[in-house]
């Protein structure tokens, strides 16, 4: 069985939208879950966040970063995926928290921001605040892919100030924290930013739950590659996470091990380029 790709389009910078038919997965995806994709028969198992699950389809945001994501983007004839597995990981509890904030500054984080905003804003008693940071105006997604229309309060920031507030979400978030307007903060995207987020919120003692997907191989709890340390205790981000209390995570370990395969990734890209040239 293959999974039909129903949409693939550029949405900003090096990011694109990927939509696939996967009815069973779509029906069960909750905020906090992720899916595993295999694009081609020789492919790796790639964990991905879901932006939207509707009508038997799931949509994801993908960055053209490594061999697989670029190859999939470049391949016009690729109309199917080998596998779409999920929902994986633990969903977060859907309940009234009060002021719920979601912050994101990178592709997967933006997808999560959308889904969280969509779901949490509908729970009575929640005031959903969404913050999204992009590097510059040209990289901002079209409005229908932003959390803007789904939340009660929205802040768009660009690092260069070309649109919206100037700077990173961390700066605006600090204002909200000072005003005592955050009951829970969720975050996704760039890992060093999430580390900064944890440092920022710790003194305020506001629960801060972030997505950390350490490098995964099977993503079903078997390999231990995605181990992270929460207050010194080993957890697997595929089955115990991927969302953890940011203030308890060992970010230095996470950031160090996320870089383990950098050289291999470069080699794969080089190989891929040569293959295309040969064709």
């Amino acid at each position, binding site marked *: 069985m293959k999974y039909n790709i129903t949409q693939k389009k550029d949405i900003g910078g090096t990011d694109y939208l990927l939509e696939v038919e996967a009815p069973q997965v779509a029906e069960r995806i909750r905020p906090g879950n992720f899916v595993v994709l295999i694009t081609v028969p020789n492919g*790796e198992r790639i964990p991905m966040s879901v932006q939207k699950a509707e009508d038997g389809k799931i949509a994801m945001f993908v960055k053209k970063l490594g*061999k697989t994501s670029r190859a999939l983007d470049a391949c016009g004839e690729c109309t199917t995926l080998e596998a779409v*597995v999920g929902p994986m990981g633990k969903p977060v509890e859907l309940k009234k928290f009060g002021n719920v904030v979601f912050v994101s500054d990178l592709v997967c984080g933006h997808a999560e921001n959308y889904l969280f905003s969509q779901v949490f804003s509908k729970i009575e008693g929640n005031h959903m605040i969404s913050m999204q940071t992009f590097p510059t105006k040209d990289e901002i997604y079209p409005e229908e892919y932003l959390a803007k229309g789904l939340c009660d309060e929205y802040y768009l920031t660009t690092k260069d100030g070309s649109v919206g507030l100037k700077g990173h979400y961390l700066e605006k978030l600090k204002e909200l924290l000072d005003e005592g307007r955050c009951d829970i903060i969720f975050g996704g995207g760039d890992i060093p930013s999430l580390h900064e987020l944890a440092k920022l919120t710790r003194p305020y003692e506001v629960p801060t739950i972030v997505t950390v997907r350490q490098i995964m191989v099977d993503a079903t709890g078997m390999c231990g590659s995605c181990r992270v340390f929460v207050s010194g205790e080993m957890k697997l981000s595929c089955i115990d996470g991927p969302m953890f209390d940011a203030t308890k995570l060992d970010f230095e370990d996470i950031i160090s091990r996320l870089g383990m395969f950098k050289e291999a990734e470069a080699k794969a890209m080089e190989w891929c380029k040569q293959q295309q040239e040969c064709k």
Partner: protein
Amino acid sequence: MPNIHIPRQEMPKQAPEDRRDNFNEVALGFTAELAQKEAQRCIQCKKPFCIDGCPVEIDIPAFIKFISEGDFEGALKKVREENLLPGICGRVCPQEQQCEIQCVLGKKQEPVAIGRLERFVADWGKQTGFDDEFHIEEKKKSVAVVGSGPASISCAIDLRRFGYQVTLFEALHKAGGVLQYGIPEFRLPKKIVDFEINNLDELGVDVKINTVIGQHVEFDELRGFFDAVFLGTGAGAPLFLNIEGEKLKGLYSANEFLIRTNLMKAYKFPEYDTPIICGNKVGVIGAGNVAMDAARCAVRLGADEVYILYRRTKKQAPARLEELENALEEGVILKELVNPVRVLGTDDGWVRAIELIMMELGEPDSSGRARPIPIENSEFEMELDTVVVALGTKPNRLFLNKVPELETTPWGTIQVDERLKTNMEGVYAGGDAVRGNATVILALGDGRTAARSIHAYLQNGKH
């Protein structure tokens, strides 16, 4: 006529210096001539003890007799009466501890090479396109089998032969469980696994890959859809050492090292997408079969020096002797009586060395093996750039967490009775999910036992 004066026939193997550089199968299998010669050694005991040693009760003397007469088809049919995975079992069963240890010849000389003969007939069948059909009397009742490792495969096959409608669910993208992700290509070629798993399709078992029970489909839903359930979820979660340095880059669980290499084919990177970084000096902690597999993969991935670091001595190593010898032939170095204290890293977070402490052997412990005792102040450093932890595995929490009402043992394995029934109505379990770390053939045996219990349950109603 049996001829006990023929010596046990050696199976041709790839030479160590050749096989260090490739993932092709090491053991090449008997030729027909060798197989017949070996088969003639069997004295056809009236009371064959070898069958008692076989967890799936193959009529061993009968199939060997067929081989000695040159009737390979007859031999294969006889084996397949009890075991539809002879190519797999002939390769990975620890026959020396099961059927062959019971062989009467073994008392005075070497036992008949039962495993090699089983493998021979399986390979003969594959090469010649042998096909036999089973008559199945269809029943309406249905059974879900969770997991697709050896226990699940054998359970699914037997249930199907009883006539039940069987659906098998696998979380990963390939069926086979440990046969796919764990055991390396050079010991068990994946084309053999795929070929024998194909039996499931041919029998009409509905195999659903990429389906995670408990995530994709809730367990209660599953129980609602099916009349009975077999859990063969394995023991797939890795154990770590809980020592300093496990955060370092270059430290792998054996599971990760093997999954990358076998299931994801990292040795073919970048043609295959999943990479592996194997350094020049590799230390594998543990001396079981998985440790040998990891060490031998490291050799093939290009490591200059590969060490098995073991706290006891060669004599107590839990690995099959054959696998340990194979590893040593390939240049793996067994370092006995050492135990890891901590793993040391470079400034940028890569493994640099391991600190070991020397051990000595004391009185036997509960396992019957001499207890290793650390020798005070004997710590020393050994330079390594890759560490693989092969200390065994435990049941995967992914499924168990979702079914808190399922009774487990203090070790996290599923609690069952002698019929392999769990505490839940109509739910049975077997293989590593129940046993912890055991063997393929014991899992196959469990699958068969569970199939019989499920058959009895579905025929007679509640247990």
